[in-house]
């Protein structure tokens, strides 16, 4: 990143915090509703120091890791099925989009009633959050394999499973990576929705707990963590991987 961009970004956040501090100092809102930036910062430090936030983060990542792994697995299987079989796609392909358009929080009551108020219910919601977007992208990935790759491979004697694994799978990797990035993003949102209504542990649960005890600085602090963790994971892992693949595949310069 160019230093000038970094400076602009830092300047922006300084201005935002400045406005926040100014509104706080105006005394327009009661302090219990509108804590100062310093207080939020201190509450974050405290939360990390006494380990409660770290425990919550670890619990959330555990739910996410299990849920996302399952979502990617199921999504890939479904996507390959719908991408390869026209029968399957004509029969149920449309419902994939319908399922994808259901916001994950809608699954929470169903999960709790079906499974109970526990971590498995949270993971269930995460799986539902990621599976359909993964399946849709894998279906696109299968359809978007350039026909000339298949033709060229066939003239070199490749067919059947060999053709599938050596040509179609690697050729569809860019869309597959997009699928994984989106599955992660949707799962992360689903995770927060699920945890918010669960009875812990997890970041979402800590957020709800803070609300119940009217600790506004913790509420804001956890929202900041959710945003920061989300963007770091996206930027450091998934976007980077996706761009790398896209570049190698000649899809971007």
């Amino acid at each position, binding site marked *: 990143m160019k230093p000038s961009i970094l400076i602009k970004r830092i300047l922006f956040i300084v201005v935002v915090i400045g406005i926040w501090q100014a509104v706080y100092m105006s005394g327009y809102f009661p302090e219990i509703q509108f804590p100062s930036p310093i207080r939020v910062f201190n509450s974050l430090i405290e939360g990390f120091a006494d380990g409660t936030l770290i425990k919550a983060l670890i619990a959330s990542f555990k739910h996410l890791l299990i849920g996302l792994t399952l979502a990617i697995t199921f999504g890939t299987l479904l996507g390959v099925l719908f991408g390869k079989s026209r029968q399957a796609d004509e029969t149920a392909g449309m419902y994939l989009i319908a399922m994808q358009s259901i916001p994950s929080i809608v699954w929470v009551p169903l999960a709790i009633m079906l499974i109970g108020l526990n971590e498995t219910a949270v993971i269930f919601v995460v799986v539902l959050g990621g599976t359909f977007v993964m399946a849709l992208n894998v279906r696109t990935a299968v359809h978007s394999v350039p026909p000339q790759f298949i033709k060229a491979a066939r003239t070199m004697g490749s067919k059947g499973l060999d053709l599938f694994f050596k040509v179609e799978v690697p050729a569809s990797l860019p869309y597959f990576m997009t699928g994984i990035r989106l599955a992660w993003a949707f799962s992360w949102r689903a995770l927060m929705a699920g945890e918010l209504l669960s009875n812990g542990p997890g970041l979402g649960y800590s957020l709800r707990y803070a609300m119940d005890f009217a600790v506004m600085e913790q509420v804001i602090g956890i929202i900041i963590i959710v945003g920061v963790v989300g963007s770091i994971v996206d930027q450091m892992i998934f976007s980077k991987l996706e761009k790398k693949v896209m570049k190698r*595949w000649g899809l971007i310069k």
Partner: protein
Amino acid sequence: MFLQIKEVTKRFEDQQEGSFEVFSGVDLKIEKNQFVSILGPSGCGKSTLLSMVAGLESITEGTIFLGDEKVTQPDTDRGMVFQQPALFPWLSVTDNVIFPLKGKLAKDERKKVAAKHLKMVHLTRFKDSYPHELSGGMQQRVAIARALAMDPKVLLMDEPFGALDEQTRHILHDELMKIFEETKKTILFVTHSIQEAIKLSDRVIVMGTRPGRIIADFSVDIERPRQRDDLRVIEMEKEIMSLLKVEINKVLKEELDHEAKHTY
């Protein structure tokens, strides 16, 4: 006879518009170690015919023999180079050339064969590069090396230089001529460029359109390298040009008639 195309017909069945016949009863015999071009206006089915030899297109009627074997599906005895290089972006240049050799040769043997063919197309320096790092002309040279590496009986080329700029095309013409002299492969080359066909080939098959069929068969008995201003080249160019003009006019007239019918 080495490559025999016997009474071959290609018909596409379309449920809405009925069947469409690209060409019918095409007969062609090609001898070993010859460079044969198939030349024709777009729509004459020359690429379809080549794909049928490759085994990528089904044969509606008739048969194609390579040696004693009937062509039913693609196999490594026929190498093909397309207009698009179709290199696999996830493999290095060397691994692309090795692709058709997997399971056929031992590991070091594969590397040796790939190195030999990359040398033939002067790309040894780029053996560890990835396709996206190469220019279009270089990519097409890798595609040629890849097709030759599996030592096919015949090399099929479907307008391989059509997407390249003029300079690069001339360089690749010279390289292909060298490769042809070195390997003495039988080459079947589809193009719509009269100059390209005459410059490269031992024999030029001219196809007409509506219906697709062979309308002429020229032997080019001019020593290589052929110069564009050679009188014999110019003479042949003119002759083929006048043949093709009739075909192109036929297409134009049909399009104009169609236009007239549908304009009020």
